[in-house]
């Protein structure tokens, strides 16, 4: 019966949310916004690419003076450039439209500016003059070095892969940091997306005076758990809707959108850190869900409950004020305090877990704390819902809440 009712509650809550036009309007705002940004990026990148291509193929007449002596005359003449005898005359020719451009290379091009005088051909086209002037200097330098590889080395164009070890075992480094941080991301997305709905999930019964009829039809714990499960399902639907355009953009339009190419195979998944991260996520979710449900049950209206929601949101963002300490000095007193204070613990501990400064013992303590406190708060939330929700228009005092918890 309890399982049948749990399924019924979940079905009812999920279906009625997913069939609401308002839900889809709000949910689709994000992917539509992402789509618009992607579209603009696509259009912008296309026009930039077209401009660059036309620049590359564009031929124009130019002259130059070289105080540095670094420019290779033969190279310049190959691409149609001529050495100017007089800088002022060259500038005058440009102004008169007899010459497209004139480049004045200074004595020390590293420290001094290369002056380019040219005919205006539009904001995108004008870029070609500077590119050609720079390219001439670059190719001239390569000619002097004698090999493109040496030139590349001189420019520091080398790739480095660092492999680090701890206790004789290879560590993940930066690539090992990213996977556990996914749990942090999920936690934020879930709480921010669903927090308000969790808060309002029991308020509806209260505001509509349904509490007594529903509580004598279905067990309070079944109802609350059913609501939480349905919120989680709704949250997943929202995440899929949000992520879908990003995935489509990455898979099919990556180059057009100029998206960076993530090589997921380089990520290092440390099983222990992943398990700890998952448990911290679940524990934190339990604690925050219980707290939000309890607040919703204790407050008479969504408006009054919203004040407390703001406080909880602040608590999950506060650890970021000390993120540099969390990374550089995890033993600092404030980091320890934030690690064990229940409402800042999930974020702080997940960060420390990702950066590898959360020992197994610390992690066990925080996970135990989150789950034990989470279940206690959830149990109290159920009782407050039973007791507080039928005080329809009243706000429960702290004394009443504690009384309800005992009842």
């Amino acid at each position, binding site marked *: *019966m*309890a399982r*049948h*009712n749990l399924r*019924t*509650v979940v079905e*009812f809550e999920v279906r*009625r949310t997913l069939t609401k036009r308002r839900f889809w309007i709000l949910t689709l705002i994000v992917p539509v916004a992402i789509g618009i940004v992607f579209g603009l990026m696509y259009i912008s990148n296309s026009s930039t690419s077209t401009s660059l291509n036309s620049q590359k193929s564009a031929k124009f007449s130019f002259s130059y003076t070289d105080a540095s002596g670094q420019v290779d005359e033969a190279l310049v003449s190959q691409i149609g450039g001529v050495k100017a005898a007089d800088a002022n005359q060259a500038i005058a020719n440009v102004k008169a439209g007899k010459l497209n451009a004139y480049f004045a290379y200074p004595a020390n091009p590293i420290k001094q500016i290369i002056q380019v005088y040219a005919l205006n051909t539009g904001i995108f086209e004008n870029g070609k003059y500077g590119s050609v002037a720079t390219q001439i200097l670059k190719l001239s330098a390569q000619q002097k070095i004698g090999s493109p590889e040496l030139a590349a080395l001189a420019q520091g164009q080398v790739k480095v892969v660092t492999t680090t070890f701890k206790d004789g075992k290879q560590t993940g480094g930066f690539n090992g940091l990213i996977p556990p941080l996914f749990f942090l991301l999920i936690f934020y997305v879930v709480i921010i997306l669903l927090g308000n709905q969790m808060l309002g999930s029991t308020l*509806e019964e209260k505001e*509509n*005076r*349904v509490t*007594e*009829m*529903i*509580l*004598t*039809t*279905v*067990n309070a714990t*079944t109802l609350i758990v059913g609501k939480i499960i349905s919120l989680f399902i709704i949250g997943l639907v929202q995440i899929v809707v949000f992520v879908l355009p990003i995935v489509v953009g990455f898979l099919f339009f990556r180059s057009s959108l100029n998206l960076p190419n993530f090589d997921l195979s380089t990520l290092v998944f440390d099983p222990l850190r992943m398990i700890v991260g998952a448990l911290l996520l679940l524990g934190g979710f339990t604690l925050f869900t219980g707290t939000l449900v309890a607040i919703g049950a204790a407050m008479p209206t969504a408006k009054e409950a919203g004040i407390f929601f703001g406080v909880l949101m602040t608590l999950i963002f506060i650890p970021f004020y000390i993120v540099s300490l969390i990374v550089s000095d995890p033993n600092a007193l404030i980091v320890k305090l934030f690690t064990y204070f229940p409402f800042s613990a999930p974020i702080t501990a997940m960060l420390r877990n990702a950066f590898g400064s959360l020992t197994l013992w610390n992690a066990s303590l925080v996970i135990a704390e989150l789950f034990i406190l989470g279940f206690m708060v959830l149990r109290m939330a159920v009782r407050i819902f*039973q*007791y507080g929700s*039928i005080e*329809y228009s009243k706000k429960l005092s702290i*004394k009443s809440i504690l*009384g309800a918890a005992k*009842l």
Partner: protein
Amino acid sequence: MAGEAEPLVHVEGFSMAFGKQTIIDDLSFDIHRGETFGFLGSNGCGKTTTIRALLGIYRPTGGVLHINGKPFKPEDGEKLGYLPEERGLYKKESVIDVMVYFGRLKGFSHQAAHDWSLAYLERLDLGDKAKMRLDKLSSGQQQKVQLGVTVMNSPELLILDEPTKGFDPVNRRLLMEIIEEQKQSGATVMMVTHQMEEVERLCDRVLFLKGGQAEAYGTIDEVQDQYGVQIIRLKYSGVIPASQNYVISRQQNNYAELTINEGADQSMILRDLVASGLQIREFSAGKLSLDDIFIGIYGDQEEEKNGGSA
């Protein structure tokens, strides 16, 4: 397993306190199977608190509250129909969705709940409203839906807390019909109401709750006997004389009710009235009505005027 003689509802030594305030103090009563029980009292005397404790919403401070021999739990599948005083449904959902939801929670299959709900709505001329949102219905129509949700599982125990509150005469009659139907099909009814004429018409036994305790408890006759004062109803012409044998408890348009004082009887009073020259057109003696008993019990309570129930 509940035996035949075992009461459906058994309350014994029930106490309930919120902080230092005691609402119910050592209350005991039974509701037998198939009977209609009036659970009566002034506003704030603890009727709703007792029902909530009986239905497991509140945990009692002390005592035993059993339905079918055990504390009530929704998941046990007891066939309960409860229409609370503060009532409402999911207003932003369609009528049929809400009815099917409650039907499924009460153990129906989706199809059975859907079919039952449509038949009920058709019967009440709400068939065309099935897909409308509840908040688009009038308050009377919403009450009909709530009533449907309450009785849809043919409850063995039907608890109605001020069922006619806010009902217009048409809906009130409909409600009475449905209660009568439920009684006919064997339901036990526990009813909280301030309408004493409804109690006299429907209830087999009653309990008057005062100060958290049973002030009067039994069949209507037993309670009337408990308040053994007799009343004389009189239609007359002239002026009723003052007397030590009676008190004029009600007087209007040549109709009066006289409460017989202790030591007097109806023949003595009739003799006094005739001797005074009063022209008597009708003279009858009877027990106090439940309305009189109610006023007698709660008439002195300040909270009676204020309203709000505990």
